[in-house]
């Protein structure tokens, strides 16, 4: 294939598009190093606001909640989503195509609708089941709800790309159903499962809408904390916190990409 260099005009447009995408993020990152307490004036470079986060018990507890929420929900959704993907690709049953369609719908439902629906459901059930009183457990449940479709779709793509002869070869070589799954199918699915888990983790990490609706007292996460702080005016420590979240998201995304490149 011939290597085509883009024209100058196309390059300029592309540069503009990227500027549009990244300028807001750049502003946040830059202002997290601004020494000025208030306002947009540049008052000199400082890392003081990053250090200040460590002295802020609210920020620390929010960070702990965020990680706990992301970790638990990712674990549960990865297990469930993987089982769903495996069942869907390996077994034939009535309504198989419907299930595939139903899997995609939660992805397109607006977050706010899902959040309201979950809130409604939890408040209906909580008088009978104390577990559903708003707090970290309900948030984990809510996050699992929106993570499962993403996990299932990523793992299913991996499974669909596997040569069926590999599992036949395992059987042919004397592997029982269980041995086949443990020694062939699962290792081959693993890159897909890890990529799905990374994706789920990132989704949970920066979710605000669903968390906000399903949180209870003491279960404030970083996005919620930032939202409530902003109401009192944007301060540089929020910029620093935001920068850290951006960093975590980038790390998550890059590792998903690396994992997917590794398994071609």
């Amino acid at each position, binding site marked *: 294939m011939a290597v085509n260099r883009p024209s100058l005009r196309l390059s300029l447009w592309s540069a503009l598009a990227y500027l549009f995408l990244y300028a807001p993020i750049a502003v946040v990152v830059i202002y997290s190093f601004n020494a000025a307490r208030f306002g947009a004036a540049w008052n000199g470079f400082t890392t003081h606001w990053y250090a200040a986060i460590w002295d802020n018990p609210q920020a620390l507890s929010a960070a702990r909640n965020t990680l706990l929420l992301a970790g638990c929900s990712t674990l549960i959704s990865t297990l469930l989503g993987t089982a769903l993907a495996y069942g869907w690709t390996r077994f034939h049953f009535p309504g198989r195509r419907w299930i595939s369609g139903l899997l995609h719908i939660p992805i397109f439902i607006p977050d706010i609708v899902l959040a309201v629906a979950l809130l409604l459901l939890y408040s209906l059930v909580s008088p009978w089941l104390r577990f559903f009183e708003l707090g970290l457990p309900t948030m984990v449940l809510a996050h699992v709800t929106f993570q499962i479709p993403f996990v299932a779709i990523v793992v299913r793509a991996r499974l669909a790309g596997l*040569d069926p*002869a*590999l599992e*036949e*070869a*395992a*059987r*042919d*070589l*004397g*592997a*029982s159903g269980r*041995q*086949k799954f443990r*020694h*062939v199918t699962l*290792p*081959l699915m693993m890159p897909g499962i890890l990529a799905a888990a990374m994706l789920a983790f990132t989704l949970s990490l920066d979710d605000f809408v669903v968390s906000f609706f399903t949180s209870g007292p003491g279960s404030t996460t970083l996005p919620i904390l930032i939202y409530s702080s902003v109401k009192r005016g944007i301060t540089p420590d929020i910029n620093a916190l935001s920068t850290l979240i951006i960093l975590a998201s980038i790390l998550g995304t890059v590792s998903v990409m690396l994992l997917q490149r590794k398994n071609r």
Partner: protein
Amino acid sequence: MTAPTPTLEKYVAPPLSGGFSIEADQLTRRFGEVTALDRVSVRIHEGEFFSLLGPSGCGKTTLLRMIGGLEMPDSGRLILLGRDAADWPAHQRPVNTVFQSYALFPHLNVVDNVAFGLRMKRLPESEIHRRVQGVMEMTRIRELERRFPAELSGGQKQRVALARAVVNEPKVLLLDEPLGALDLKLRKQLQIELHQLQRRLGITFIYVTHDQDEALVMSDRIAVMNEGRIVQLDTPAQLYERPRTRFVAEFLGACNLIEGEIVEAASGQIKVRSAAGMFMVAMGSIAPDIRSKVTLVIRPERIVLSALTQSGQPNRVSAEINDVIYSGAETRYSLCGGAVPFHCCLINSSAVRDGFAVGESVSAYFPPESLILLND
């Protein structure tokens, strides 16, 4: 079935003693509208190199997968090593397969791929090591030990797939077009290696291929399949020399087909009239009904060309050479005699080219013993 003609006997493999590895009885398998296997019955001897030969979609792979337990028949019975295979799961059968795509486990290196079957059987690691090393020695892949399948060439993958199957010491080895993806030269080399390996191991090989040369080179017996059925089952020599249908004649090697009509049948000879002239043929397997339409088959290398002398005799056709193709070991001629086109091929047994030129008139002799009479 007719008795083999005496000239063929020296090519026929010695009769195989012992029992049967496979006894298939009326095996049928349908996929939706398509009948992949249509009441196939076949018995395969222990220690035999048996080939299933046919065009794609003829059912050969389905039959192979049934023997391996990866496919179940809709009806019919399969006896594997004297035992009914209906309730014998694939992973417990003493049968291993070399897959067409090799199906090497991409997450395991060569040693772990080869050791896979033995590990599943939970043999002691010391024995696994000994057997894996032995087989890797035999298939000459020892230096590839630590490599992963993605780092191997086609020929190397083929050897690893073979080692991975053979290390389990199966009673029957199934090979599904294992050389299909390799280039011609490597294929020729591996054909000989596979043949020698089978002799050395003494186990039953069932080999699926659509390549007639491959089947002829390696097999003790070949089942030619078409549209889900076995159309002829014979030794390679019998199949080549005495095909029983037009399909078999055309599928195995090049051949000339001459349409004709029986005009006389007496004293072990049949006289056939065709547009190319009269032919005398030895009385064969088909009923010599006068006036019935028949097809004469002759292999291109059996036609004898000579300078034009006399004509009008049976089995001798005056023909004109339309094309000459020199291909090293042999020279191929396209001819036309009595409006019937045919091909002929002469071995270039000396460096002096004493063949014929385009446009030359020659006399083509069709020896009666080389003519095959078919009634389809």
